[in-house]
């Protein structure tokens, strides 16, 4: 089972935000892993330990900024990511969720295809009636690249001697059985699972997960389900179904979905340790190596249509920003000067002022007016009592003050 964990690098809280026309300049900011994606990596790790396969991390952005984040994931709990892919190209910059989903879906297809063609190489060797030794050599080569699971070839001490390659050499298996095993692995690879966080801490849209599913549906020409806010998770690799519990408002839905699929993992998700029995099977279908050097794909290696990438491929454009306005009048307790009572209209130096309501802010009045009102003894500092009176219409008894 290929488990693809999507993640995004987001600006660190401490970094200075650099944008050009509303588009983040990620290459100039300190980036960290989107905190919501940690749940996706946790769920991916659980799926692998319970059902076998490998966890592949996938992201998009400037590779030199992303590599350190990708490296951390190799150490993620419990077993860490097995492989890391980064989609990096200048043409991908400035993507909205549509263009991001398009690019990620192409990346997913490319990764899945790489695994399928490795298995096809083995199948064609079998068809050409190669020798078991030659088959084993090819399997070893693919194992080193982490493209075949332990059931086909492995150097794990617990499995050595009992893999398909070993059994062919020992005459315990034949090419027909071998083809069946490889076909099974192939089918499982086609039933991949994409896991993602429910949203990112920068954009907070929650759109990318479902849009990746839609993009994959287009690429594969079939309905690929997405389920968001998954809080419980179980897979049955034999039947190819995933069982999830998701929350929609106050409704809990338990769903059975076929693979491939895309799920986003709720912050409420808690992984449970896999059963011992499951772990045994999982080991056979897991991959023995970790490739700890991120693999980088550019737009050309994805066969991407440049018109669908980055800013050019984004239907939405971020317009000018606006500040949330301060209220016209602000009063601070113990700081702001206000009128302690209503003041009727009056004349000062030939000019008319007022009338002023009780609690009118006095600091902003012309100095001579303020002085005049001060002399009349109606200027005071705004108090908590005044706040209660103005805001709630509750007048505080003089007696209640003491």
């Amino acid at each position, binding site marked *: 089972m290929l488990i693809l964990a999507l993640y995004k690098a987001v600006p660190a809280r401490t970094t200075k935000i650099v944008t050009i026309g509303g588009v983040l300049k990620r290459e100039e900011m300190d980036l960290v892993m989107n905190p919501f994606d940690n749940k996706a990596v946790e769920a991916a790790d659980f799926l692998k330990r319970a059902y076998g396969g490998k966890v592949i991390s996938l992201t998009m952005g400037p590779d030199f900024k992303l590599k350190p984040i990708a490296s951390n994931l190799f150490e993620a709990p419990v077993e860490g990511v097995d492989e890391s892919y980064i989609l990096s190209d200048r043409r991908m910059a400035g993507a909205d969720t549509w263009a991001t989903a398009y690019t990620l879906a192409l990346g997913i297809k490319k990764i899945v295809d790489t695994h399928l063609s490795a298995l096809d190489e083995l199948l064609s060797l079998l068809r050409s009636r190669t020798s078991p030794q030659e088959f084993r050599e090819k399997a070893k080569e693919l194992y080193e690249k982490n493209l075949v699971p332990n059931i086909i070839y492995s150097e794990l001490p617990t499995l050595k001697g009992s893999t398909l390659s070993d059994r062919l050499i020992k005459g315990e298996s034949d090419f027909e059985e071998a083809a069946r095993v490889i076909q099974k692995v192939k089918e499982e690879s086609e039933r991949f699972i994409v896991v993602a966080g429910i949203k990112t801490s920068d954009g907070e849209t929650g*759109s990318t997960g479902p849009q990746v599913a839609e993009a994959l549906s287009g690429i594969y020409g079939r309905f690929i389900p997405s389920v968001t806010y998954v809080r419980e998770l179980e897979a049955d690799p034999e039947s190819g179904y995933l*069982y999830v519990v998701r929350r929609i408002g106050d409704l*809990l839905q338990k*769903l059975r979905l076929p693979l491939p699929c895309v799920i986003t993992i709720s912050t409420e998700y808690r992984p449970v340790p896999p059963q011992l029995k499951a772990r045994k099977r999982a080991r056979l279908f897991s991959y023995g190596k970790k490739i700890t050097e991120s693999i980088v794909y550019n737009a050309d290696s994805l066969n991407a249509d440049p018109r669908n990438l980055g800013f050019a491929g984004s239907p939405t454009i971020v317009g000018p920003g606006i500040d949330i306005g301060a*209220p016209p009048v602000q*009063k601070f307790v113990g700081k702001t000067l206000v009128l302690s009572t209503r003041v009727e209209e009056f004349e000062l130096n030939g000019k008319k002022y007022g009338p002023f309501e009780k609690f009118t802010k006095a600091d902003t009045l012309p100095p001579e007016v303020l002085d005049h009102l001060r002399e009349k003894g109606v200027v005071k500092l705004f108090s908590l009592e005044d706040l209660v009176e103005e805001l709630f219409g509750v007048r505080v008894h003089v007696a209640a003050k003491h």
Partner: protein
Amino acid sequence: MQQNTEYKDVWVYCEVQDGALTRPTTEVIAGARKIADRMNMKVVGVMIGYNLEKVAREPIYYGADEVIVCDSPLLKSYQALPYTYVLSDMVLRLKPWAFLFVANEVGRELGARVAYKTITGLAADCIDLLVEDFVMHTPQGTLVFKDCIAQVRPDFATRIAKIFTPKHRPQMSNVRPGSFSPLPRDETRKGEIIRWEAEIPAGAFAVEVLEERRLPKSNVKLEDAKVIVSLGLGILRDASGNPRNPVEAYEHAEKLAAIIKDRLKVETEIGASRALIYAGVKELEGLIIKDRQVGQTGKTVAPDVYIAAGISGAIQHRVGIMRAKKIVAINTDPDAPIFQIAHYGVVGDVYEVLPKLVQLLGGGEVEA
């Protein structure tokens, strides 16, 4: 580029629960009404489900001009694939100018899939919708796109951004609950109900709903409260920086909410900032629950009075409370961003100010 002139009307995806429109749906209809009137277009409700006969006219009572209803036993429970199929089919054939969803679990997923499928943009978490010309400066010159929706949403930086979808139609958004006030329900409003027969491929039913159950309804009603007393991380320490038992602050807030309710005869509620909820303070377990969260990921609120106690006021929180009529901020830090948008500021200790407010409200007399 698509010929934009053939696209018309503002669609609203209508969610039904317990035989009624959900409140956020009625809010989005009000938002749609605002931009549709500006464009001389219709507001069209779109409803998918089963046994919708009784509820089909509700969008009209709340301000829509027409409702498209797709009613089938196959569509009884929400599922992304068949619902996306039906909506995308409608969009491609009927060409709406705008399509709005509620920014909740369903609206976010469904809107995202429909937008991708119909090759258009989606602005998430909108808090307002305006109609403006969008001016784009390109190396080839300045382009003006007449009458686009400015989809107003909180920005990741510190401000609010307007998102435009200049070239693609429909312009799609999901709108945060609390952003618009529903129009009064009016049963005399007339409008057409259009039945939509969908032929959905079997493949769209790949996901099987095995079980559905409702969680106990939360009794936190931030949406309806006229006064909200909200707590933030600041309650963990007093003005001198000494740790305090935050339950005390909660009790002060509770007393304040109770006394305001009692004296002013209005609904009150206790809210919390995201920071306080995610801090996972053990003492506050069961008291400061997720349903109380105010802000971008929580609820947008519009009370008459919002009292922010010990809340520093991150942009997400400020956006969540900007529709409050009056904001009172209590914080020991005079530079806390919350003071920028507060009508009343109290630089002081929550542990002193809240009890004082309780005392004043309890002792004072209500003016007629």
